[in-house]
């Protein structure tokens, strides 16, 4: 039995209000300014197809920052969920340039500062790992890069279904309480990252309460719009990874630490790997930039022996997925068929090749590829991944026919929608 997401209603996020803020003159003007900034940022790098999609990307960019602005006051914290999410049943998309949205990830934020004392209650759906962090940088908040994380808590990867947790958050240290996160003077957001390895699981439930007295009344509509406008403009500089993904290789060596963040340029139709510090946990990223002819596909082969969790995702120029609810633009472990020898093979192509692990590049002329890997705590455990060009004829298979594919897509759509639902137990939190 599922009910309409109570968590959405119990948070401060009011989607009709968010849409009203999105159309506020200050926000509309800020989006124009951001568009100018992105144009400067990217110069002549923007492909014609990408230029066509720019308005949509900017609209999502604006909405993302409207959502953040709506829930930016630690005096009146709520839980803003489904950030960096494609357009869906709860509202417009909230991604934008350089979002690199992960369809497996449920991102939620709660505003905090160096003064607020909060209590966060969580009920988990199981088979998912969850990290809760305090971050200090608005842009990196959603990426959770380690150098902006000042406090970190995790359930680990073996959370049982229905497990509940209560965390305290505040400026004091509490060494005796493993469920305490200490804020710093520059803290901005509590970031909750829940990895949805099983898309059929209902969303986790979250509730936040402020414990100490508030210091100000809630922001007015105009104040929220002004704040959103500042975010929309000010954060463009932080979207610089989008440019680097399309630029020649950086001068000098030793850019590994930044490579994961910047998606440093890669030769076309090859893969490059680097450590991933997202969520403050050990992992790896594999990145690629494809340019396929009409009859060409890109074949990725992976040895899954040392990997516990992983996914591959195709993106457009703006590092945004295309319709992840209804197209196989990504696959995680549970959506992948693994061979008996422990390897798996993904085929990135515009047309269905009939293989089990097809990743739909969704008509994108130059798709970008991200592979994400959790290496189960093994610092030396880089995934064994190779990528190569092939022809569609080379890989075409009858393993998955059109009917079976349609069944798979229908299941994908239904399971994707589960992230917007909370079961009755969690709804009562």
């Amino acid at each position: 039995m599922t009910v309409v997401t109570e968590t959405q209603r119990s948070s401060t996020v009011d989607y009709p209000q968010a849409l009203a803020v999105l159309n506020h003159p200050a926000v509309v003007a800020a989006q124009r300014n951001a568009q100018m900034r992105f144009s400067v940022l990217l110069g002549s790098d923007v492909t014609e197809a990408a230029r066509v999609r720019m308005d949509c990307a900017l609209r999502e960019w604006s909405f993302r920052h409207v959502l953040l602005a709506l829930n930016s006051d630690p005096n009146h914290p709520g839980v803003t969920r489904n950030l960096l999410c494609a357009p869906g049943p709860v509202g417009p998309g909230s991604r934008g340039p350089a979002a690199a949205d992960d369809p497996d990830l449920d991102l939620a934020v709660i505003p905090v500062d160096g003064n607020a004392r909060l209590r966060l209650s969580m009920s988990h759906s199981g088979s998912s790992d969850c990290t809760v962090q305090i971050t200090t940088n608005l842009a990196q908040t959603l990426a959770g890069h380690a150098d902006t994380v000042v406090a970190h808590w995790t359930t680990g990867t073996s959370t049982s279904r229905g497990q509940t947790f209560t965390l305290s958050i505040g400026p004091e240290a509490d060494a005796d309480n493993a469920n305490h996160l200490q804020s710093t003077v520059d803290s901005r957001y509590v970031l909750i990252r829940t990895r949805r390895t099983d898309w059929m699981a209902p969303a986790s439930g979250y509730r936040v309460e402020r414990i100490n007295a508030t210091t100000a009344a809630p922001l007015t509509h105009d104040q929220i719009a002004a704040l959103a406008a500042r975010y929309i403009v000010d954060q463009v500089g932080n979207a610089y990874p989008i440019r680097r993904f399309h630029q020649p290789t950086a001068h000098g060596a030793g850019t590994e630490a930044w490579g994961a963040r910047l998606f440093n340029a890669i030769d076309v139709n090859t893969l490059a790997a680097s450590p991933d510090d997202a969520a403050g946990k050990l992992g790896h990223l594999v990145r690629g930039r494809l340019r396929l002819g009409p009859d060409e596909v890109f074949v990725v082969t992976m040895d899954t022996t040392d990997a516990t969790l992983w996914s591959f995702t195709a993106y457009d120029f703006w590092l945004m997925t295309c319709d992840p609810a209804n197209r196989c633009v990504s696959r995680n472990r549970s959506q992948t068929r693994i061979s008996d020898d422990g390897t798996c093979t993904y085929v990135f192509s515009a047309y269905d090749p009939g293989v089990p692990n097809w990743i739909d590049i969704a008509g994108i002329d130059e798709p970008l590829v991200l592979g994400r890997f959790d290496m189960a705590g093994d610092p030396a455990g880089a995934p064994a991944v190779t990528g190569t060009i092939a022809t569609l004829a080379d890989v075409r298979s009858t393993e998955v026919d059109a009917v079976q594919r349609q069944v798979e897509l229908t299941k994908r759509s239904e399971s994707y929608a589960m992230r917007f639902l909370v079961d009755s137990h969690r709804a009562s939190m």
Partner: protein
Amino acid sequence: MTAHDPVFPPIQLGDGYFLSERNPTATADQVEIESRAIKMMRLPLIQWARDQARLGFTALAGGDVPAEAWVNFDQVIDEWTFHYVLLALNSDPNYPKVMGHFFGPPHEWFGMKVPGSRGPGTAENVDNNYTVIPVDGISRFLLQGRRFEPHIGDCPFQITTNLSDSINVSSLDWRDMVFEEDGESFTITIDPHPAEGRRNHLQTTIDSRYIFIRDGRMDWRQKPNAYRIHRLDPPNRPPLSDDETASLAARFVLDDVAPMFWFKQMVSAPEPNVMPPVVVSSSVGGMPSQKILCARLKIARDEAYVLNLGTGDAGYWFVGNYQWWLMSGDFWKTNSLNNLQSTANHDGTYTYVFALQDPGVHNWIDTLELEETLIMIRWHLLPQTHDGPGGQPWADGKLVKLSELDRNLPPNTTHVTPAHRAEQLANRRALFELRYAH
């Protein structure tokens, strides 16, 4: 302020907090912050952050960087790091201090060799003394100020919301400042509430981070104002420990890399040697009362860029040249000129010559041996309109061979002999050193 708030004694130079009777920027807080920052620079964590920032800028710049921009790159990154260490040491609104000489060049005073505090994208106006004071969106503050003869030419106050101090939420124009009966002292209230009759007031927002002050020396003899900050509410947490401050500094050193590189890229976006339109600064981040032109130059050793400027009835303007990373050079060279440092053409316009070699004209902007530089021209104290700064300042120019320079200059251009140049530079150096005299 309320009736319960304390009354603070007037500012008095040489009182123990102000360490000098002639330099209002020489304060106990300033010396303490700089001294701690110098020590903090040696910490492994800060050096790690410094190295990460270096990697970041290197990666962001890609393969577009001219060789000359790498020559002093390590010094540029050292300044960047020191800048954010200073900022971290004065970032807690519970215990705010007044920190001046932000965006400054390396200097010595009070027995300290103080590193520079600029970096990629900082684009400082070398006429200014920049001051930052931490605030937040919930607390009440009182800023005491006092000016001294010779008075500063301009001094806008802003509340900013980001580390780069480029997003403003509240401004106070120097021309609107209401002084006390002595004609020199002033106070500014800072809190989340509207002014409601308070004469000098800055309203904070939930995301406010700093009071950002630009004491603008039109004439380098002018003295920056003296400031003291008072928090009117009790602090809500204990002071940061050294470890907490170092961690904060490391975050700052890394956090601003991408935004500041974006800003540098924005300035360098136009085609080289083409002057784009003048815009209001707030469209790109900065002073809302200012108009600005950003451009890129590419000049060979045997060339010069001749720039003609229209004042737009501005009370002050500044023509600054920056290295490829958008950081200023030696303040004591003619790497910049403002209106009082420049000579006018007969028709009221101004002509500047950008060149690697001294072209023998008074208005030489020395590119400091660099062929690829960035320029920013700032016009302040423009006629005020309902929609912001008015006036119609402009600039255009062209690239010429040095051998053909004279025929491309207006008649009656002021030329200088080597002796005059030496005198000009000696005078500039002497005035520059007033900043750290005490």
